[in-house]
């Protein structure tokens, strides 16, 4: 395997600390940049993400042009708090309302393409406990300073929060190491150079994102990497060390569900590419067992595996962003 990419396309956020330099590069290229935060009940963390990014990368340095929150129907105060601190807040169901409604992170990311206006879009998870503006400028650095790079993914040291506010210094990334990395090693060894393929922080040019499909759930990160790799190759991708990100620890059963969806997404992509044959149908249900009153009870979770098509094929999107093109015709 050629591991040259790891050396040439891996950066550290500190290489892009000169935010004024990034603003100059952005202005020279005549670009606009949008930040999208997908949310579902994130009232504890949403305000600080908005505040820090807005203060440092909008008010003090005009690097980011808009902050957009796309919410999946939070039942807490996420939307109200986000509005209080100045984000543009949308409910996913209100965007492109003629389309069938789905709920999931991938759905929010996909719909964000329609409501944002940036040439570059930065996606950050809304549950980052140690948010810092490096999460945004670190991802934007390679895109603004290296013309060949169109998509940037984050990696970091991942301490995990355990119990009530206790921290374990190492850990996390279990689905990556137990599911994604073995799959990449078997089928796409080159992609193993992406150190944290499931990280929820990435940025890229609109004309990359609007040409790829978005699974509505957990599989969105895996499919995004596979689709960009297939269409444009590894060279357009980069990864940035963001130092440290503290995240919620999920129990094994929740990770099992995540692994189920990722595996399915992966197999579907392989089938589409004609790289494998499947002689039996795949099921949509993840079956886990719980011991309830000395009896094992099946806990079945259904994952339909819905996927949104490339946004470029959506008529409303083309009307908004490419009004000069003929209706129904891709630009």
């Amino acid at each position, binding site marked *: 395997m050629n591991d040259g990419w790891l050396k040439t396309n891996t950066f550290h956020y500190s290489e892009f600390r000169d935010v004024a330099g990034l603003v100059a590069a952005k202005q020279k290229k005549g670009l606009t940049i949008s930040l999208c935060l997908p949310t579902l009940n994130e009232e504890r963390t949403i305000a*600080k993400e908005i505040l820090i990014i807005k203060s440092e990368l909008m008010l003090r340095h005009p690097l980011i042009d808009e902050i957009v929150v796309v919410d999946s129907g939070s039942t807490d*105060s996420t939307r*109200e708090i986000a509005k*209080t601190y100045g984000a543009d807040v949308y409910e996913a169901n209100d965007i492109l309302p003629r389309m069938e409604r789905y709920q999931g992170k991938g759905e929010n990311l996909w719909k964000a393409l329609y409501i944002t206006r940036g040439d570059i879009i930065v996606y950050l998870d809304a549950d980052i*406990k*140690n*948010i810092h503006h490096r999460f945004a400028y670190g991802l934007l650095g390679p895109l603004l300073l290296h013309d060949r790079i169109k998509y940037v993914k984050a990696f970091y040291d991942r301490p995990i929060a355990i119990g009530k506010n*206790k921290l374990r210094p190492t850990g996390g990334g279990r689905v990556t190491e137990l599911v994604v990395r073995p799959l990449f090693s078997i089928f796409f060894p080159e992609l193993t150079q992406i150190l944290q393929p499931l990280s929820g922080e990435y940025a890229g040019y609109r004309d990359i994102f609007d040409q790829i499909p978005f699974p509505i759930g957990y599989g969105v990160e895996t499919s995004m990497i596979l689709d960009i790799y297939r269409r444009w190759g590894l060279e357009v991708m980069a990864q940035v060390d963001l130092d440290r990100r503290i995240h919620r620890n999920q129990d094994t059963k929740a990770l099992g569900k995540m692994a189920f969806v990722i595996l399915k997404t992966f197999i579907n992509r392989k089938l589409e590419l004609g790289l494998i044959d499947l002689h039996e149908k795949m099921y949509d249900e993840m079956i886990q067992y719980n011991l309830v009153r000395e009896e094992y009870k099946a806990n079945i979770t259904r994952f339909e595996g819905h996927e949104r098509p490339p946004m470029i094929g959506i008529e409303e999107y083309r009307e908004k962003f490419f009004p000069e093109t003929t209706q129904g015709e891709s630009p």
Partner: protein
Amino acid sequence: MEGYLNRIPEMVEQIRAVRDTIITNILLIGQTPAPTFREKRRTSVFMDRLAEFQVDEVTTDGYRNPIGVIHGTSAEKPPIFVVAHLDTFFNKDIVYNYSVGENTITGPGLMDNTVGVGVLVSLPFLFQCLGLRFESDIVLAGVIQSIGKGNLRGIRHLLKTWEGPIRGGVCIEGGELGRLNYFSDGMIRAEIECSISRSTGVTHKFLPNSILVLNEIINEILKLRLPQRPRSRIVIGKISGGVDHGAVAYEATMGLEIRSHSDRIVKDIYKDIQEIVDGISHEDQVDLKLSTISNLNATRLRYNDPLVKHSAAVLRALGIEPVSDPTESALSILLSHNIPSVTLGVTHGYNYYEEDATMEIEPMYKGIAQIIGVITAIDSGVCDE
């Protein structure tokens, strides 16, 4: 004097207008752990923020206290020190997860002293926004090793090694808004450790219990007669020991503070407690050790000191009624160096020493305005009178 007093209430709106950056500073400082003796990471954040705000000099002193210096317009005027302690009560292994609501911020160490430090690093930005220049250099110091066994070592070292006179000082604490400290009590903070030998034999027919031994010491301390004037008191603030409900406790520790307006009385009370400890140790045949963790001398400005008067006027101009109590903090070190100084609180809050310490956002704007008002007063010469 009247001129800047009138201007202070107008500042509140201007400060509110840059809310996002002030809260950002509080968050960036607060989510970086800084237990006493392990403040290195927060020191870096502190210096990074000052550098981002184009502070003229950003450095550390020989003790690694991070310092920023904003150059003044006059080379003759001595500098004004603005100080906030960097360290927190919490250890490094908890999640410093800060949460911002519509009207409040919550997080461990917030009120003591993330808010103070966050506001301190915001000052250069606020001075720029308000168009303020000062004659004196403004020295912004985030002092390390303040709490508990730190014994205010950071500020002690900073002042001991600072060359040249200092015009005046402002210490910033998270809460409460309205505090105007200008004197500190003499204080000795001490620990009593009780240890019971695990060996049985002729020494003890029945093993003593270290918790009960400490209880006996507490009873004896409570019998001490303390003077009403100078005002003096003993605070028994901590006690821990034992391992299980049904097992004799071999080890126990208690922490206490002796405070008085008079240093001599503090020392006398300490001697009394030493005698109690020695007596019980002898009679109960247990190992008892009294040790000093930290100490401060009583220092004070007079109430009619120009700095105190002007500071009170600044607070009142903002509709805040000043409340004055003694404080055991950096203030006492500044005053002991004959630097006229006061301590101010930024906002209202609660659960100070819990992981969910919470501050109110809205009062903070007045809290910041009062700090800028007092700095302006010092710069206009109230400490030179």
